[in-house]
């Protein structure tokens, strides 16, 4: 997450109030922001709200960003904080399901396999959603953005050891609750 010259120029353009700079910065980071928001909240409408608030916050405070800081970590922190602040009660992971169920509808699968896989997806998502906010966020950052422990530590404001511990505990919970479904997910002959 090193701030490159072009990224620096983009930030400086935003700091000058250049509208094209804002749009370019948005285009550069929109997928990351939206993905974290969607995978954490599990709801497209909530994710859009989180992403929108994140960019509005970014644009209103970018003047205070110091050039020598880690911009991406700064932006990640904004998303993470907005995810934590999100108070929606109707958290669900339906958007996850849509793509997964479609992917599972592969030729040659039996109706039973389709049902089991759909069932598995629902279970995986509900178990992830049941994790504590900190554990869930670590899982999202790890599997959505492939961030390292050190990068996550900077974003979450804790040590890499804490990140490893949270992720390990999350894995154990997920394994324990999903172990009976593991056979369904693994293609025949690969388990």
């Amino acid at each position: 997450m090193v701030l490159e010259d072009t990224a620096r120029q983009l930030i400086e353009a935003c700091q000058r109030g250049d509208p094209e700079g804002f749009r370019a910065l948005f285009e550069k980071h929109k997928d990351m922001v939206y993905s974290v928001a969607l995978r954490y909240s599990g709801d497209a409408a909530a994710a859009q709200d989180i992403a929108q608030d994140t960019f509005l916050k970014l644009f209103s405070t970018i003047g205070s960003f110091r050039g020598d800081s880690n911009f991406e970590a700064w932006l990640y922190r904004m998303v993470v904080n907005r995810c934590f602040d999100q108070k929606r009660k109707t958290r669900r992971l339906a958007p996850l399901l849509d793509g997964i169920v479609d992917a599972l509808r592969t030729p040659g699968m039996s109706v039973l396999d389709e049902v089991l896989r759909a069932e598995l997806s629902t279970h995986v998502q509900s178990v992830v959603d049941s994790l504590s906010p900190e554990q869930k966020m670590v899982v999202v950052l790890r599997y959505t953005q492939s961030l390292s422990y050190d990068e996550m530590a900077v974003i979450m404001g804790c040590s890499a050891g804490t990140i490893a511990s949270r992720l390990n505990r999350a894995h154990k919970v997920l394994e324990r609750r999903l172990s009976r479904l593991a056979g369904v997910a693994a293609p025949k002959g690969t388990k």
Partner: protein
Amino acid sequence: MAAEKWLEKELARQLAPVSAPETLWDSISGRTRGRQAVASHRLPERLVYWPLAAAIVLAAVAGFWFSRNGSSGEDRFTEKEVALLERHQGVDFRADNFNDARNWVKRRANIDIDVPQGHPAAENGAVHVVGVRLAKLDGLPIAAVDYEVSGETATLYVSGKRAGLTSDDMGPSLHLHSRRGLTYWNMRNETYTIAFHSATNPHGACMLCHATPVQGDAAQGSPESQPGL
């Protein structure tokens, strides 16, 4: 190990990044335009804050000026002012009677001190004048006459009326007594204050003008309860 790999693979698949919807920028730019529209209807911050800052500065300066000049509209010294005056002890002119003290003050500071002359209390030795000194309070000349009542020292402070006062009464105004041993009144163009801190005879200093200690003006009920005294 196999279960762990399965889990990681499943999570990576289910939590894969997605593309932001096309409507996201529209919602952000719409909110931004809304904020700008609201902001454009507001007065520029400098037009709001500068007059406010100027008003605060003016109020502070006025407060400082009034505190320095004591022109609070009060017809008397505050306890704080008397405390300042009481820091100065000793006399500039020794006098064993009130007429000598009054004449010296008139010559040196052009302050008229009006107290009854030839009063029995002064004659029979109940009140004994020690001397007089001149002081200044925020540039205003003040005469301080020290005298003794039953062995305890009292001081009469007299000054010309301060700026902002409108009273032009020729006779003595009501006397006010404070719990802190101060007695106030106005007469003609002067303000009078007696400081006498006696625990046993709090109104003894009034014998400078009265035959017996004055317990308080009947006209104003209970002077001790006057606010600000």
